[in-house]
């Protein structure tokens, strides 16, 4: 019998944030429509390295497995992407899998992306409704506005845009493209626009929009094809307008 087709996977392991990193290599049986998640599950079922050493299952985040929850972002062959949609047949082997590098490491491929959710708080990424009691319908929204807003609202907070941004590093607090794009989303909604200035002000401080150096890596890394650079340009204009107005009014 011919040997079954094999898939070779190299995973960067780290038992905890203060432990040393190491690489482990695994040899897995190929299966049709195999993705990186299946690789990680197969390893968990039989945690033995390629050279026959027993090891532990790999810690990683995942949930929906259809690229809409944002959990399973990691570096696959050096590229920030979602593990669920990373199909083995389209990847060069050995497949190198590493955790995102711009977020605090928890263990193996698990990182802590709380920073992104905190940033959403800073920019007040919500519509401040009075309450959940019945106040009738919302404002009318033109199809044009909806077609502009809907793609922005697809952001899954995966962190890919932060991972590829040279401005996101240990010396900066840059909140990143995803957050700027959320400000654009809420500012274009008729109700959200009423608090437009608050959100713009939040982007003027440390970690705000002036930290963007226009590398434009973000828009290429976004798994949801969000027009991030367009958002940055649009919000930048608004921020300047507000700054100038503030200066004129004094």
């Amino acid at each position, binding site marked *: 019998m011919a040997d079954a087709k094999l898939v070779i996977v190299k995973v960067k392991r780290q*038992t*905890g944030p203060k432990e040393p990193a190491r690489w482990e290599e695994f040899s897995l049986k190929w299966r049709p*429509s195999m*993705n990186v*998640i*299946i690789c990680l599950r197969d390893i*968990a*079922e*039989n*945690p033995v390295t390629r050279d026959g050493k*027993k090891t*532990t*299952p790999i*810690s*990683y*985040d995942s*949930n*929906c*497995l*259809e*690229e*809409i*929850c*944002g*959990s399973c972002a990691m570096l696959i062959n050096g590229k920030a992407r979602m593990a*669920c*949609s990373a*199909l083995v047949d389209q990847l060069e082997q050995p497949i190198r899998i590493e955790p995102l590098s711009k977020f605090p490491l*928890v*263990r*193996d491929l698990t990182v802590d*992306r709380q920073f992104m*959710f905190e940033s*959403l*708080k800073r920019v*007040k*990424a*919500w*519509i*401040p*409704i009075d*309450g*959940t009691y*019945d*106040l009738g*319908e*919302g404002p*009318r*929204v*033109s*199809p044009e506005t*909806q077609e502009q*807003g*809907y793609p922005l*609202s*697809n952001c*899954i*907070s995966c962190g890919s845009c932060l991972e590829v941004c040279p401005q996101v590093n240990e010396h900066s607090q840059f909140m990143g493209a995803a957050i700027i794009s959320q400000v654009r989303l*809420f500012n274009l909604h008729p*109700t959200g626009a009423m608090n437009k200035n608050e959100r713009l002000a939040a982007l003027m401080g440390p970690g705000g929009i002036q930290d963007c150096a226009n590398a434009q890596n973000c828009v290429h890394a976004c798994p949801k094809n969000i027009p991030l650079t367009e958002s940055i340009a649009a919000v930048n204009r608004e921020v300047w307008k507000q700054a100038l107005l503030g200066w004129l009014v004094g």
Partner: protein
Amino acid sequence: MRQPKIIVVGGGLAGLMATIRVAESGVPVDLFSIVPVKRSHSVCAQGGINAAKNQKGEGDTTAKHFDDTIYGGDFLANQPLVKRMCEAAPGIIDLLDRMGVMFNRTPEGLLDYRRFGGTLYHRTAFAGATTGQQLLYALDEQVRRHESEGKVKKFESSTFLSAVIDEGGVCRGICAMDLRTMEVKTFVADAVIFATGGIGAIFGRSTNSVVCTGSAQSALLQQGVDYANGEFIQVHPTAIPGEDKLRLMSESARGEGGRVWVPRNPAEKRAPKNIPEAERFYFLEEWYPKYGNLVPRDIATRAIHRIVYQEKLGIDGQPAVYLDVTHIPRETLDRKLEGILEIYEKFCGVDPREEPMKVFPAMHYTMGGIWVNAEDQATSVPGIYAAGECEYQYHGANRLGANSLVSCIFGGGLAGPAAVKYAKNLQAGAESTASSVFDREKKRQEEKNQALLTQDGSENPITIWRELGDIMTEHVTVTRINKNLEKADAQIRALQERYKKINLSDRTRWSNQTLNFARELENMIILARVVTVGALARNESRGAHYKPEFPERDDANWLKTTRAKWANNEVQLTYEPVDISLITPRPRRYDAAK
């Protein structure tokens, strides 16, 4: 006056809505979730949310929505609360609209509506084909706002292990495990609301997310919380088969005009595009002329199984049929269905705008769930409430498409204030409970962890889980045969025995996902027995529960709710009448107008 405290477990639509309502009333909330709540399974809902707003001049009413829901559920749902939900639905859409959901719009700037299964009206509001994601984000944003104001505290990398129940049988809080430190802790609350979703994982592969294990529901069942209609699960007719997951292809594809067909000739070799109309078998349209491709899911699923397994007409002899949207203009597809078409393209490498999709039914939704009362989502244990997919109230024997999001938000919205009212009326709050009650529960859970981490055995948890999924999928989904169900229950019992010999390949106490999975697995096995034993007992066919040996609905003997308890390692079933006070049951058929 003492300040009550509420815990919400689960951060999908129902849990977030409950959280918002509690926070709004000025009562502090602790919100527990395995994943950051923005990553909850509600994001996977695609097609839309139902409300009879009658914005297409069709004469739709909430009474018709109510009738469609009860009829679609084959008369197994208690009617009064379903009626209230349908009446509340238009207001729920208004609320979501005010929260800024980017719903699709008409040229006039109003919400657009599309048709969904089991109705003849355009009743489904939608945001592209990612409606669940958009609604979840709206609620997530509101919760984040309350969180920034200090009203909500999130525990987003924590898993629920058990309720803390005192000597009087009253819930006084929960015991949870931090998924990073693996530390077991108890948390005090006057009332706890569970919104822990569906149970897809007990079927191995399903359309559900990884966290949808039913573990919390099962843990509660084992602590004396009743579970109802466990045998009712929904198999969605159209999903993409996959090794790790069966990815949903929303009913909205058919709502926008998508057609299901197979070649009439089983030996057909031509590409689907080259097969002339006359040689295509649009079996749903032929068999159900009135509803066509939009028959309810149980009907469509059984029709596809019949085509594949009896008529032997699956594409290339495989278990697959075509879901065809290629005749719909590209511009319409991109505006209304882009999200799901992208999923197909990404995972199958074929553009569904050019070539019909290949789909097959998959475990999708849990109609059964934690028993709740007919007024306010209270369970059988004082202090415990449940809302969303984890409870059984709204969908009877089969859920209509686009009714899940509305039931989550309605149920969550009801549970929040109910829990607050209960907490405020307590004579003695949870803070007066003896600390020994909490210590005992914590010790019980720590001992379980300790045993799992130290025992030597020969069984791998993932292997047992795969086998459980295979048993459940083969015997307890679309077609149920008593002797097979008996065999399945025996096999699941055998897994329960093998579970005792489980060996964790990871014994560390930091971010140990294997330990957490092993804990969930034990609960999954028990819940699988509830589903199987419930199915075995119910000798009729109703909605999604289909037994060829008993092909008819049997109202005389089975128009009743199953209530399961767990005692002495056995499922104990009792039955109670269904409240049919508003609509008299009538035969359910979709080949003609009802």
